[in-house]
């Protein structure tokens, strides 16, 4: 080693590098750049591009022509109603079922078996569920056979290629999703709060209504939003299990048709923007109503 290291030059205040480091920008911070560039290129840029493209109709003319066409053609604007008629009841049903079940499962020791079973339909995906339900719910399927054996119905119920087929597939894939989210919120609440209420003589319903519900409302709002946007973007099962030219012609089918059958990417982008806007509107409405409920610590010391 050279004992006579050159003396450091006299500095006038901290260097630019030091000042940046003090604000959190140094070589480590730069590691975020590849992922950020990637996200900008493949997520933000396409969105911006699609937004601008939606105002440049393929056939030329008015910059709002795509949107005017969408809202004047019932075959197109009805898709919003069709999608909402599926997504809202399914999301509400899933949430209404998930809450009491989550409250019961929270007391279980061995939750893992149940959560593993419930993760199955999410992992298998909507295409496989659609294929399975086509056979299972069909007129000769085991579901109708069982009902007929028990004498509950005399004719097979028509459950596929209509509204109910898509509804069933959204419950099969959507319920586990809603349930697992709800369970993670429910188990995050300090059980001491419930025990305190029970000590003071509150019944099970009172404990739920006056202790848990106010604390869980924000979590339920987020669960509703996430489940809703999933259901709203239903695509493969609406084609395979539904009636894609009629009652289950959902908005994503309209967008895919515009893009891949008419090759009108401008129109497809407009429909995708409308789809995003409707989702955003519902999510904002739900989250805004969160302000009406209690906000504050709920997990106590449990963490």
């Amino acid at each position, binding site marked *: 080693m050279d004992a006579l290291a050159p003396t450091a030059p006299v500095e006038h205040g901290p260097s630019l590098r030091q000042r940046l480091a003090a604000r959190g920008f140094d070589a480590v911070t730069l590691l975020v750049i590849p992922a950020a560039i*990637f996200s900008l290129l493949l997520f933000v840029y396409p969105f911006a591009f699609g937004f601008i493209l939606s105002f440049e109709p393929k056939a030329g003319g008015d910059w709002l022509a795509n949107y005017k066409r969408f809202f004047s053609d019932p075959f197109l604007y009805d898709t919003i109603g069709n999608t909402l008629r599926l997504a809202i009841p399914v999301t509400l049903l899933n949430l209404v079922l998930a809450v009491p079940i989550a409250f019961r499962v929270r007391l279980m020791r061995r939750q893992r078996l149940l959560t593993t079973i419930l993760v199955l339909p999410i992992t298998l995906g909507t295409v496989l569920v659609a294929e399975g339900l086509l056979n299972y719910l069909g007129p000769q399927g085991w579901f109708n056979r069982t009902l007929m054996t028990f004498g509950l119905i005399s004719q097979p119920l028509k459950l596929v290629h209509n509204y109910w087929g898509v509804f069933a597939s959204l419950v099969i894939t959507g319920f586990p999703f809603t349930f697992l989210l709800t369970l993670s919120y429910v188990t995050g609440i300090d059980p001491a709060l419930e025990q305190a209420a029970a000590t003071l003589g509150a019944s099970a319903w009172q404990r739920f209504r006056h202790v848990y519900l106010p604390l869980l409302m924000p979590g339920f709002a987020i669960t509703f939003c996430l489940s809703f946007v999933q259901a709203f973007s239903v695509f493969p099962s609406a084609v395979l299990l539904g009636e894609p030219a009629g009652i289950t012609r959902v908005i994503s089918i309209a967008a895919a048709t515009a893009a891949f059958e008419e090759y009108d990417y401008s129109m497809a982008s407009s429909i995708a923007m409308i789809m995003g806007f409707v989702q955003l509107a519902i999510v904002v409405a739900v989250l805004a109503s969160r302000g009406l409920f209690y906000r504050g610590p709920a997990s106590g010391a449990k963490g």
Partner: protein
Amino acid sequence: MIRDTTLGSKLWAAAIWFLVGFFVINLFAMIATVVTSSFATRWLGTWLPVGFTTRWYSSAWSEFQLWDVLIVTFQVIAAVVFVSGALGVTAAYALARRDFAGKRLLVLLFLLPLMIPPITFGIPLATVLYQTGLAGTFWGVVAANLVPTVPFVILVMIPFIEQIDPKIEAAARVFGANTFKLFVHVLLPLLLPGILAALLLVLVRTIAMFELTFLVAGPTSQTLVVALYYAVFAAGVRAVQSIDAMAVIYMVTTLVWLIIALRFVNPTQIVTRAKQQPAH
């Protein structure tokens, strides 16, 4: 624990377990239908098929060119897992260790692709990929699949990195480790369980990712789930059993990886992302 012993609460509990049982039975019956049908010789109007055979598997294998499809699927998955690991872990490290202006905005940028359903951002993304000529190619499919997986890895890894004591890194620095050595000998062994868990979840999600692959795939870049969709879509052209055999092959591919993944992660993590990080 509070125990309610009234009749009402027992009935309520029974009703809830009945609902859970109903759901689980229907789920398994649906899966069993597919498996039974794939082995059936002729199955019309009876509880069980007339006879059983395995020939649908060989016919599905040749009809749908499953060997090519499987190779493409695994190539896509390998590329997605590798790239999202490399991009995601480095970005997560920066976000976990440094506080800087605009960090919240950046986290929001990574959160959005997980919140917005794939079909909504997939259509503008497909448009851009078609204009650049990437759509229909192998790398187009990989790029589209990376959009949700890179943020997913970042959000799973941030809490994992945060709980590693920075003093360990400081100690390695004191003993003269450069950045590369620090990463290979100190960080990587400590982060390996987290990275493994995140990448297995990416793998399972990518096998089942239908929408994005569907929107950008061409005939030679289809993954198994998209091939299955087209087979079901064109049902009537092929025998139902043949499609079901393909569905079983898809199911086995997915479930093998799910079982491996579940050895390392909690099932709830597949849904609730970074929220349920187990304490290590």
